[in-house]
C-alpha cells in the first residue's frame, strides 16, 4: 500500500531549490579555469550536485509504505521562533530582563497552556543568573533594564 510521501518530496525539492540558489548566485562570480579556480567554481559545482541529490532523493523516496508520517508541530516551531525573535527585538529596546520574561512566556506556549507565575519566576531567575554570569562576570554589553 504505497502512498506518496509529500514531506520527503518537499524536503528533496527544498534541497534542489537551495542548490539552484547556489548556482544562481555562484554564476555572479568568475568561474575561472580548472587550473585557476575562480570564486564561483565551487559554489556552482556544489549547487549542481545538490540539485542532483535532490532529484535522486525525490525519486527514491517518492513513495512510502504504511509508515507514520514524521510529526511536525508547527505550533512548537511558531511559538519558539516568535519567542526568540521577541528576545532579539526587545533586548536592545528594553533590556534583557524584559526580553527574557517575554521570551519565556511565549516559548511556554509551545508546551501547553501557560500559567503566569511559574514562567515569570523562571524568567526572573534566569535574568539574574544571566546577569551574574554574562554581564557582571564576562562583561558582555547587555543591559538588564533600559527605561
Amino acid at each position, binding site marked *: 500500500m504505497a502512498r506518496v510521501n509529500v514531506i520527503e518530496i518537499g*524536503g528533496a525539492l527544498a534541497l534542489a531549490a537551495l542548490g539552484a540558489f547556489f548556482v544562481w548566485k555562484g554564476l555572479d562570480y568568475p568561474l575561472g579555469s580548472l587550473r585557476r579556480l575562480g*570564486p564561483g567554481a*565551487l559554489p556552482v559545482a556544489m549547487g549542481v550536485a545538490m540539485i542532483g541529490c535532490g532529484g535522486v532523493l525525490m525519486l527514491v523516496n517518492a513513495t512510502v509504505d504504511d509508515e507514520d508520517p514524521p510529526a511536525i508541530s508547527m505550533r512548537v516551531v511558531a511559538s519558539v521562533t516568535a*519567542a*526568540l525573535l521577541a528576545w532579539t527585538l526587545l533586548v536592545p529596546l528594553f533590556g534583557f530582563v524584559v526580553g527574557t520574561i517575554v521570551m519565556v512566556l511565549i516559548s511556554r506556549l509551545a*508546551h501547553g497552556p501557560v500559567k503566569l507565575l511559574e514562567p515569570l519566576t523562571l524568567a526572573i531567575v534566569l535574568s539574574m543568573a544571566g546577569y551574574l554570569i*554574562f554581564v557582571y562576570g564576562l562583561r558582555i554589553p547587555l543591559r538588564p533594564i533600559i527605561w
Partner: protein
Amino acid sequence: MDFFANIETGLQVAVSPEALLFCFIGVTVGTFVGVLPGIGAIAAISMSLPLTFYLDPTIGLIMLAGIFYGAQYGSSTAAILMNIPGTATAAVSCLDGYPMAKQGRAGVALLTTTITSFIGGSFAILLLMAFAPLLASFALEFGSVEYFAIMTLGLIAASSIGIGSPLKGFAMVLLGLTLGLAGTDVTSGVQRFTLGFFRLHDGISLVALAMGIFGIAEILASIKQQQQVSALKGVSFRSMIPTRDDVRRCMWPTLRGTMIGSAVGILPGSGPSIATFMSYAVEKRMAKEPERFGHGAIEGLASPEASNNAAVQAAFIPTLSLGIPGDAVMAILLGAMLMHGIAPGPQFIGNNPDMFWGLIISFWIGNLMLLVLNIPLIGIWVKMLAIPYRILYPSMLFFICVGVFSVNNSMFDVYVAIIFGIIGYFMIVLKYPAAPLLLGFILGPLIETHFSRAMLIGRGDYMVFVESPIGALFLGIAALLVIMSLFRAVVPRRREHRA
C-alpha cells in the same frame, strides 16, 4: 626518554589548580548535560565556547574536552535508568541497559558502564600519546593534494558510515561546504553569498550555526516528546557489585569494543556514534546466544560503552595531528582552537607541546574524575532527571541566545541561529543528518583552498591526485566507501530486520 619528558610537561600543565578546576567543571557539566535529554554535548560545548575566551586556551580546551567525554558518561546513565539517551551514542546503551535496570540490575549496569568506559578511554589515550606525534611528523610531508584527499575521505566517511541515508548525508555535506564558503573569499577577495549583509563578510558564525542546528533544533524536536519522568528508586552501592559471571562475560566484549572504537575514532570523518553502533552489531554477531541481546545482555552494554569512550579519545588523533575533525564535536573544538588563534595541523604538536601533552594528561585526569565521581553521584543525577522539561527548555533557549550574542556582541548572529534552528528542526524531522553539515561547513574553505592549490600544481590535470601515493590511497578508500554505500542501498537490508 623523550616520552617521559613529554609526560612531565603535560603533568605540569594539567595538574595546575586552574587546569584541575576547569577539568572538573568540564566533566561535571558534561555529565549533567549528558544526563539531561534534549541538550547534547555539542550544544553544551558551543554554549561554553564564549566562556573559554576568557581563559588560557589550554585550560579552555581542557574544559571543552571534559564536557565532551563527560557527556558520554552522563548519557549512558540516563539511557540505562530511563531509556532516554542523552546523546546519540547512548541510544545503544538503552537497548540492553534499560532491560537490565528493569530486572533490578541497574547498579551493575551503571558500574559496568563506568568501568568499561574508563578502560576504553584509557587505551585510546595511550594510542593518542603514541600515534599523534608520529602521524604529525609524517603529515609534515603532506601537500595540498594529500590534504584534499584526506578531507574528502573524511566528508565521505561522515556521510556514508553513519546511520541513515548516505545520500542525505552527502547532500548535507554539500550544503555545509557551500555555507562554509559564504563570506569573503581569501583568494580573490570577493564577497560570496553575503546577500548584502555586512555582518556576513566574515562568513556565517560557527557558534550561531552550531547552536541553531544542534541546540535550538533539538529543543524544537524534543518539546512535544518529553513525558514526565516517573519517580525512580535510588540505586544503592551494594546493588552495583557485579557477579563473577558478569565480569567473565564482559572481558572480551570490552576488548573488542575498545579496538573498534579506537579504529573508528581515528578515521577522519567518523566518530563515537558510528563506533558504538558497530560494536553492538559485532557483539551480537559474535555472541553464542544472540537472543539475549535486547533483553539485558551485559555484553551488549560493555562493548558499546568501551567503544564509545575509545572513539571519543581517538577522534582527537586526526584533529590534533592533522587538523581534520573526525566528528561534529571535534569540528567545534577545532573551531574553538581557531578562534583562539591556534592552528591545528601537523605543526601543532611541535609548536605547542605544552598544550598537546597538557590536554592528554588532562584526559587521564578527567577520565579518573569521572570514574570516581559517577559512582557516588548517581543518586543526584537521577534526581536531576526529574526536572520538568518545561523549565529546562526556556532556560536552554535563554543561554543559547545570550551565548550566541556574546561571541561577537551581535544580535545578527542570534537571528542566524534562529534561522538555522528552524532549518535544523526540519532536518531532524526529515532525517537529514546534521553532523555532516557541520563538518562540511568547517572544512569548506579548507577543501577549496587545497583543491585549487592542487589543481595549480597539477596544471589543471586531475591525474595529480593519482600520482601521489597517499592521495591516491585516501581517495581510493573514499571511492570504496561510496561503492559500499551504493551497494547497501541497492541490496535489500536484511540485517536490520533481525533485531
